[in-house]
């Protein structure tokens, strides 16, 4: 019975997110105040529903629901939506939902469709695993927003550079606001990602006696980390303009998605 309730709650939340996405995109291309309100309301309702779903799942499992890949993706979405609601207010970017929600919905739609639940080997069941996953997960959520901000930045930069404003130009916020948001989400996400990965590595060396074992998720994660490290380094130390930083942020997110894909398709220590 709790399992069906949980599934129902999850479906309701996802439906609300889809509705919110439609509203947000409608607001981006159309110009109706109402569709933006609908998007905001649906996002909030979906998030509340999602919260309950996660809690129910946790109670049902008697543990934090962040051990299997679907669980992790679900919580990443949950944090990303929360961050989106915050950033939309904080930076006054009404168009943000139109760029974050498609990613959220995309992730949400693959979630129930046969992603294998990755059972972890008994050896790695320890308290550290929670911290490792939780940190990496917070990092991932911030990077979802980072991707959206970078994407919006590139769109707006193109508009301004081309000197021929289109409809989207009027809906997107100032370039520097987008740059600030993308920098903020990167500096928020990167430390979490780093700490999460570091913990994973340390802990892998303790468990298996070697730091770099042939585990696809770990290796892909390292590649992702390197791309994001380069982005952050380029911004703080180099003379990178928003555009190059945005390209790197998008590349980082692409490797991140590849990492997720790899962990599903390839087998390693993370997956059984």
């Amino acid at each position, binding site marked *: 019975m709790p399992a069906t309730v949980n599934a129902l709650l999850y479906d309701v939340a996802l439906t609300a997110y889809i509705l919110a996405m439609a509203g947000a995109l409608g607001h981006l291309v159309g110009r109706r105040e109402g569709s933006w309100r609908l998007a905001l309301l649906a996002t909030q309702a979906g998030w509340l529903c999602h919260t309950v779903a996660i809690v129910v799942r946790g109670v049902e499992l008697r543990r934090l629901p962040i051990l299997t890949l679907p669980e992790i993706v679900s919580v990443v979405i949950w944090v990303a939506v929360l961050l989106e609601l915050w950033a939309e207010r904080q930076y006054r970017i009404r168009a943000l939902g139109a760029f974050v929600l498609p990613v959220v919905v995309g992730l949400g739609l693959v979630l129930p469709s046969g992603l294998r639940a990755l059972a972890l080997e008994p050896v790695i069941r320890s308290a550290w695993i929670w911290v490792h996953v939780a940190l990496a997960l917070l990092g991932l959520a911030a990077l979802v927003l980072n991707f959206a901000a970078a994407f919006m930045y590139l769109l707006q930069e193109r508009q301004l*550079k081309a*000197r021929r404003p289109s409809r989207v130009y009027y809906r997107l916020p100032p370039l520097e606001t987008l740059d600030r948001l993308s920098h903020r989400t990167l500096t928020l996400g990167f430390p979490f990602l780093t700490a999460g990965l570091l913990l994973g590595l340390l802990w892998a060396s303790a468990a298996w006696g070697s730091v770099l074992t042939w585990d696809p998720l770990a290796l892909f994660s390292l590649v992702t980390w390197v791309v994001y490290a380069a982005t952050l380094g380029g911004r703080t130390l180099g003379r990178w303009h928003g555009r190059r930083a945005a390209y790197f942020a998008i590349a980082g997110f692409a490797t991140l998605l590849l990492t997720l894909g790899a962990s599903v398709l390839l087998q390693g220590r993370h997956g059984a």
Partner: protein
Amino acid sequence: MSGTLFVAGMTHRGAPVEVREALALEDDKLREVLTAVAATGVTDEVMIVSTCNRVEVYGVAEAPAEARAAAFRALGAHRGVALAEVEPYLASVNEAGAVRHAFRVAASLDSLVVGEAQILGQVKDAFELARACRTVGPVLNALMSQAFSVAKRVRTETEVGRLAVSVSSVAVELARKIFGRLEGKGVLLLGAGEMAELAARGLMDGGASPLYVANRTPVRARELAEALAGTAVALADVPAVMAQVDVVVACTAAPEPIVRAADARAAVHDRRTRPLFLIDLGVPRNVEAAVNELDGVFCYDVDDLQHVVESNRRERQREAERAEALVEREVDKFLARLRDVEVVPTIVSLRERLEAIRRGELDKALARLPDASPETRQVLEALSQSIVNKVLHPPIEKLRDSSRAGHGRTWIEVVSEVFGLRRPPGGRSR
């Protein structure tokens, strides 16, 4: 007869400026006109909106045509303009048309530059002036307060007034699209063209500072720097200054570009990640075309700015269509409310009339029954009450229905006639 709401007047569309200016009066004279028109008794309520683009009389009168003639005769009298001279330019609308017009004017949808912000203040002033002269009553009061709230909704819910439609203000708007806030953004002004000065002023008004001014003639640079609270710099220092500022406004008569790609590249190199916005108002252009290809540099020449102006105009037009739809809904709502209000006085006097008859007849009957028990009195009371209610029911329903259907006036007449009601005073039954 009850009064009709009307608007009569002329705007930039129908009347040439010579005619409009002949009727434009300052507040003191308008006060006299308002009082004079009200004194003639042709209007129940009247107010006058007089701006450089429109002279309009808003009012309630039994005969709007007469009221319009009286008002424009009085307006013309101050400059010796005969009514016959302005009559051909006058247009008027009544009732629903007048409500729509009032809402559209206040929301700046009827303006020469659609969405400009001044008109709302001007209408508010006109209303206050008429109120001070005690020439407004319930109808104009309701109309204007609704018009102001419609204007506010149009402002907040559409972007009709938000987009810049002049070259210099578009430059400022673009700076905002790039930098967000302008506070603390440095500006370099090259040359001394009027449009460049306007753009620089706009940026400074938005919070941009500091300002540097460079000119071929150092004296002119110093003068302009002083006028704009900036610092004059030598032409030779321009490349160095360019690395520090965020916006460069160029408007010189130089035959060749004075901002070269090499200079811009050096400036960009020194400024790390901050974007650089160049506004090139010079013809021939002051900035080399290759500059726009640099990463983080945005360069707009006069044609580009004009292009954005056009695009903003189109966007405003689309927003205006949304605003028109909003106004249309508000007009319907307002008319429905007015119509409900219009039959209320008749219903009240109808009730009063029948109640008076009932009381009179009941008292007469009771006088003939001195020994009546309290029960009998109660029965008689209830009987008379119930007869009155049954008689009242159809006409009241008819009045309400007809007013909602838009022909309440006829039924007000009929019911008043049939029941021998006195007309509501002052003709303000609407």
